[in-house]
């Protein structure tokens, strides 16, 4: 049940993120980027399997954990992805801000001097 709910949330996050990214407005683009990042993190979390087992801590006096335990790796992956995503968002924010100052517009459609 939780999987279905989370899958729907991921779908909504992706849809909203992609919609915002295509809005041509640089502020909305950054928000869309954030939403897609969250969607991806939740996706890892859900796809790796939700379970309510014991935390993966090795009890005293034993060398291997007692199964069944929760897989700790997805959380580690998500943590890494969050940190990277944070740095990325900070950089993108500054880049877009300075582009906005130089260009005098926040419409991505108008920034096309390097295209063609």
């Amino acid at each position, binding site marked *: 049940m939780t999987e279905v709910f989370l899958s729907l949330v991921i779908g909504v996050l992706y849809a909203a993120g992609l919609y915002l*990214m295509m809005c041509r407005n640089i502020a909305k683009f950054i928000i869309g*980027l954030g939403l897609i990042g969250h969607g991806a993190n939740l*996706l890892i979390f*859900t796809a790796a399997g939700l379970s309510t087992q014991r935390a993966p801590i090795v009890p005293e006096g034993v060398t291997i954990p007692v199964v069944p335990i929760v897989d700790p*790796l*997805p959380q580690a*992956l998500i943590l*890494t992805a969050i940190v990277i995503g944070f740095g990325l968002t900070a950089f993108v924010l500054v880049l877009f801000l300075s582009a906005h100052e130089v260009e005098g517009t926040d419409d991505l459609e108008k920034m096309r001097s*390097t*295209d063609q």
Partner: protein
Amino acid sequence: MNLLLPAPLLIPLLCATLSLLGRRAVGVQRFLAVAGCSLNLVVSACLLYVVDNDGIQVMQSGSWPAPFGISLVVDRLSAIMLVLSGLMGAAVAVFSLAAMDRHRPKFGFYFFYHTLLMGVNGSFLTGDLFNLYVWFEVMLMSSFALMSLGSERAQLEGGIKYVALNVLSTAFFLAALGVLYGMTGTLNMAHLATIVRSAGNQGMLTTVSLLFMVAFGIKSAAFPLFFWLPASYHTPPTPVSAIFAGLLTKVGVYALIRLFTLVFVTDAAFTHLILLVGAGLTMLTGVLGAAAQTEMRRILSFHIVSQVGYMIMGLGLLTPLALAGSVFYIVHHVIVKTNLFLVAGVIAFRTGTNELIALGGFVRTMPWLALFFLIPAMSLAGLPPLSGFFAKLMLIVASFREFSWVVAITALVVGFLTLYSMTKIWNEVFWKPMPPASGEAMAKVPWSVRDRVCLFGPIMALALCTVLIGICAEPLFGLSERAAGQLLNPDEYIRAVLAGAVRP
């Protein structure tokens, strides 16, 4: 433990740290760039020698056994890529001594240059999929910073397009990685390769492989997601766009080759057909886009797109000769393309522009430069006896043997159109008389002996490589064939990584 393996990561890391500490001392940073990158090249060459003779080298970082820890793995393809990254790093570092202004190093140009090389080398070294994601990010963050360093208007605009699509591609990469982990419970590529062969849900696996294809397709600027590349590569200073042109898209191609020979080969008839069709369209759109351009670096940027098509074409055919052709093509392309960007850089250094209409007469004012343009340009178009001829020959022969007529003919036509673009640059920049305005601009810019050595040294070295690969193609041909053999028989890779592994 083999100390040679992490060296391509540790050398740039050390140089980056020292460059950051000596932020104000531009001279020290410049020395570090040249010395560090040369050392990197030597180490990578040693690694290639060791791998070619003694087989795949593996290091389990932190001595954690294979599927749990992060493995660093170097097979022949990785070693070849490492040598290329070392060579380009060194060549562009020397070039940057003259071509880079004095301000950007103070704001961390060399720091980001080293971290970029570290990210690129890390992507080639790692045997772990999530670690690959992390190295991609290291490479991307450095490239974002290099792209926008200096904050000129065109740079910021190009930077936005570059950043937007690349960030989207990493989001796809991350999502694909999550789903794959959910299905298999591992991220070690060798371990993945053993698991997916017996995985139950093959349909889902193909879907995930397509998600990876999209993510790496954006990175390697393949059709239809290539437009960020020609919109941004001509905006930063030449040393930056030269190293980008040489290495970054090739990391995407490398990741495609790695995953689609090692892991996703269970449904090759479907996935590799998509790769082949994509390759053909990539070649065609790239070369047609180039035909419409009138700025030197933009033409060259579009040609990166079309050349990436050739590399993916070999992967799509998935025969020993085709894959060897891909490896050969990557080697040829990286050297030639960086060289062409460096030539464009010399022209921009002398005249301050790369617009074809404002240039001319270089065959009389700088005949040597004309020669060093002609060598890589003709090699890019695939004229014998230069390196591009043999690269294209291998791929086209391989596609005829597979009866893939359409892609073979596309490759031939694209070769001709490449020749058209190169002759266009030749006619406009070198042959036609020089417009008086740029003649005056040239007279004003100082042109010292030091500039000449720093600018022409790397160009001559790379042109020499092109000619050597063309005249004595046999050693590289043999090496590419051995590399392709290793890719097509993943058992060797799997055994090397999982040797002594604890079976979970």
